[in-house]
């Protein structure tokens, strides 16, 4: 399926990446090529096949519900660009 300009705008919005106006047509062309190429999977008969999300043949492990880490607030915020009073900061969300 061809990916058009509006689709690129929609997908970029979902991905939270601002795409400059001038890149939209190029990206639409590239994404169309890639999607067109992966569509060869339609040839494969997958009736009755379960999708494989992971090769790891295991159940998730359980552990005791107890604290194993913590008390490292300053480490956690040490790489934030604008930490305030030991907290992350963002632009105002609620007026």
């Amino acid at each position, binding site marked *: 399926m061809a*990916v058009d300009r509006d*689709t*690129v705008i*929609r*997908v*970029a919005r*979902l*991905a*939270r*990446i*601002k*795409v*400059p106006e001038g890149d939209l047509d190029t*990206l639409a062309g*590239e*994404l169309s*090529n*890639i*999607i067109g*190429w*992966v*569509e*060869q*999977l*339609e*040839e*494969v008969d*997958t009736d009755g*096949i*379960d*999708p*494989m*999300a*992971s*090769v*790891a043949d*295991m159940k*998730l*492990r359980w*552990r005791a519900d107890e604290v194993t880490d913590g008390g*490292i607030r300053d*480490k*956690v*915020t*040490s*790489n*934030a*660009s*604008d930490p305030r009073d030991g907290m*992350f*900061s*963002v*632009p*105002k*969300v609620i007026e």
Partner: protein
Amino acid sequence: MTAPTDFTIAEARDALNAGTVSARELTEAHIAAMEAARELNAFITETPDRALEDADESDARRAKGEALGPLDGIPLAIKDLFCTEGVMTTAASHILEGFVPPYESSVSGNLRTAGSVMLGKTNLDEFAMGSSNETSYFGNVENPWRRDGDNRPLVPGGSSGGAAAAVSGRLCLGATGTDTGGSIRQPAAFCGIVGMKPTYGRCSRWGVVAFASSLDQAGPMTRSVRDAAILLGGMAGFDPKDSTSADRAVPDFEAALKVSVQGLRVGIPAEYAVDGMNSETSTLWDQGKAWLKDAGAELVDISLPHTKYALPAYYIIAPAEASSNLARYDGVRYGQRVEGDDLTELYENTRAAGFGIEVRRRILIGTYVLSAGYYDAYYIKAQKVRALIARDFTQAYEKCDVILTPTTPGPAFAAGEKSDDPIAMYLNDVLTVPASLAGLPAISVPAGLSGDGLPLGLHLIGKAFDEETMFRAAQALEDAAGFDDRPGQR
């Protein structure tokens, strides 16, 4: 006497044990080599001070009779995808420039605990997305090899291109890589070294910057099969912090090399004779079959019928997982931040400025195939094809013990040669991706040169958690090939 930078890890270990070289001497020689080869751009961050401290601690341990094991005092390079406590970790992306992890990845931590010396952090394709090391924000890496009579720079492959160039160029004795669809094996083949991807779950993913979590696996990059076995032993092991880490004992991989391949059944998959494979590569494949047969193995024709669908399935699954994993780079908690009028604009501006074009392309593809209305047609379909690819291997392993193929369709290419066509670039991984989708161990062994003097690799795929058999076959290939060419000598 062998120069310290020409040692294999095994030779350096023996020299350290014999007292004929110190960790400090080994480390100083490699720091000098690293500084002299900066035009390769193999490292994003060099850590010579830390390396010398590590080396002195190692020598002090050894002097007290408390040496830790085969990696104690061995100078290694760490791909800049492994978080290293107190040392900048970028994933070769602008968005993580300046990020200093307050913790250590489990794999690099295991290597520290084993007493190894960290020389620095190697360059890679941005977020490990690429097959030529041309997408790094910190610049291209050059392959130490050149075509005969042609001085144009060649790509080292990717994504672990800096690691491959550093090992090939004698800037370290070994390096860690990571492999999602071929990111260890393809650059190893392009640079004439050994690159090994273990079974999914063998090495912990904890603290490794995530690309596609169901595929990512760390592994060793070295100049011999024995070294790969030694280095993997130091990297592997169960880790409760990675939910997909395998709770299994780590075998003595090096000990497995003693066993011959007599009677081993080597599968030859008809479907790996792909379009676009160069004739030298297919000749080398035939040579590899003959070598293993001469060593006593039995060749078995096998079929992996869904091989041609592995690459398109991968290019749905990997970008889908990447789009989800890379959602964390939002400019709030770490990494670069570009302000905006509201929170959404802060995210959008940060991510527009922080990601390079290949990463952006893959996030958009991944977001598209996961979006409402397309999820079943693309993502679920690809996961079903993945199940068929894994089933192909399971059925093939009823008839054989290990599988032999070439690593790549052809040798290293020049910078810029494929960077305008994403699909042409993706085809580099056509022979390595199937084992990734099935989570199987695989290794590339340098086995010969192309007509214009570039290394070519042979590729062995093993059964899950049977790295030992795969290492045995790799040792037989290495012994028969007698590959001792090195870059810059012709």
